[in-house]
């Protein structure tokens, strides 16, 4: 278990979900004659002018607005993603410039498949908790790609979540503690300069997703002396609808505890944003005193678990920026042809 010497928490949060969706049935219509089950109802699709940087900027602006701190007060702007637009040129400097944080700020791009955002969060806890920084902005954002026809294409989606870490006494939710559990696992990977990832089928569920999350979550609850019933809400990384439901049940959480943070059925797998977006959706409705258990997962593989306690500040602060529901409500569905054009799946030369 890891816990900084100085208590820390989430001061502000912000989300971004693109306007566009494609129905999983539409993908199935192209590749499977519409037959068989689908892992989600729909997934979000980034518009042609959107990427990890633009989504991070919007989520970051909302986090700053909710925190009520100026951009110049941030000591770090960190962006976790597996879809940074440049291979070499940081997303973080562009995001920080757009937020108005430059030049006296640390920026970095984090990468750990779907848990790059929570890595940045844990590092931010260390910066603030050690006294090196007053405020750190940790962002998870992705515009994930799946090979046409592959199982991943049904879920690989886009979204961003930004968490502004600061002193616990200013927090809308204090972070009680965290722990990280990682093991070298060949469950999912993408070689450099390849457009699409591959997945190692037999590793995907056990020992990867379920194994890593169970270890991290169980360890943190044991060390804190808590059990699933002690938490108002729980949220897990959500590569599809069924995985977080299953691991929640394995750990002893009820469907009611995970319902509010489960966004995958409507928007798919937002990768680095997924668990953090679910957490933000919980912040949108949580009451002072509520407790939240969060566990991210990244292929390769590993999990970060966090225990949070919501404070009185949540009630006023969540009104300062658009709620997750506002982004979910503006959905516009596109067909496979538009999706293929926007996502670069057409050979143009």
């Amino acid at each position: 278990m890891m816990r900084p010497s100085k208590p820390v928490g989430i001061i502000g949060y912000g989300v971004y979900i693109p306007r566009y969706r494609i129905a999983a049935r539409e993908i199935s219509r192209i590749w499977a004659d519409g037959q068989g089950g689908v892992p989600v109802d729909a997934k979000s699709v980034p518009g042609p002018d959107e990427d990890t940087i633009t989504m991070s900027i919007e989520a970051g602006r909302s986090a700053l607005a909710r925190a009520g701190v100026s951009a110049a007060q941030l000591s770090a702007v960190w962006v976790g993603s597996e879809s940074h637009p440049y291979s070499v040129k940081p997303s973080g400097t562009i995001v920080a410039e757009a937020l108005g944080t430059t030049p006296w700020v640390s920026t970095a791009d984090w990468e750990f498949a779907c848990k790059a955002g929570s890595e940045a969060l844990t590092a931010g806890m260390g910066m603030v908790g050690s006294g090196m920084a007053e405020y750190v902005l940790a962002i998870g954002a992705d515009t994930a790609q799946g090979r046409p026809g592959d199982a991943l294409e049904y879920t690989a989606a886009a979204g961003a979540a930004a968490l502004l870490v600061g002193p616990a006494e200013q927090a809308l939710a204090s972070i009680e503690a965290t722990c990280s559990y990682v093991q070298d696992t060949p469950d999912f990977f993408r070689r450099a300069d390849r457009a699409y990832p591959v997945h190692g089928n037999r590793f995907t569920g056990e020992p990867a997703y379920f194994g890593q999350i169970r270890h991290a979550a169980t360890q943190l609850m044991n060390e804190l002396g808590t059990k699933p019933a002690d938490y108002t809400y729980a949220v897990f990384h959500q590569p599809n609808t069924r995985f977080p439901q299953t691991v929640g049940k394995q750990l002893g959480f009820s469907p009611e505890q995970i319902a509010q943070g489960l966004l995958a059925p409507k928007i798919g797998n937002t990768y680095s944003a997924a668990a953090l977006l679910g957490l933000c959706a919980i912040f949108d409705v949580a009451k002072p005193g509520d407790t939240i258990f969060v566990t991210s997962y990244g292929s390769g593989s590993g999990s970060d678990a966090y225990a949070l306690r919501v404070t009185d500040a949540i009630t006023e602060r969540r009104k300062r920026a658009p709620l997750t529901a506002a982004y979910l409500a503006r959905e516009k569905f596109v067909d496979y042809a538009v999706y293929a054009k926007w996502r670069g799946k057409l050979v143009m030369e």
Partner: protein
Amino acid sequence: MDLAKHWRQRAARYRLEGQRNPTSGAVRFPPEPGETDWQPFALSGQGTVYSFTVVRQPPAGLAEEAPYILAMVKLAEGPMITAQLTDCDPEQITIDLPVEMVTRRLRDLGPDGLLVYGYKFRPQIS
């Protein structure tokens, strides 16, 4: 590749940073170089649609986004600017519609070129 041109405009494009005259209180956008009595000023990004058109025959580099909406936006602080509207359909747009600034990808200058980011506007989310 016009690296310097794009780099020079980053504050205005990324975060709608204009200028304010501390004596008169006047606000202008885009910012102009070479004068010392105008200070950098962060515009709110709030505005209304003054007029708009739909571009169906786009210039080079914007084919993927066409058709798109080009609008004159009256900013809350006074200046009028031309920008794309995004995340909306033409039938949603009316004169005086409240819009807000978002930072989006404006251009992709090719596999060995820059990605250019800057302001667009969209109907308000809340």
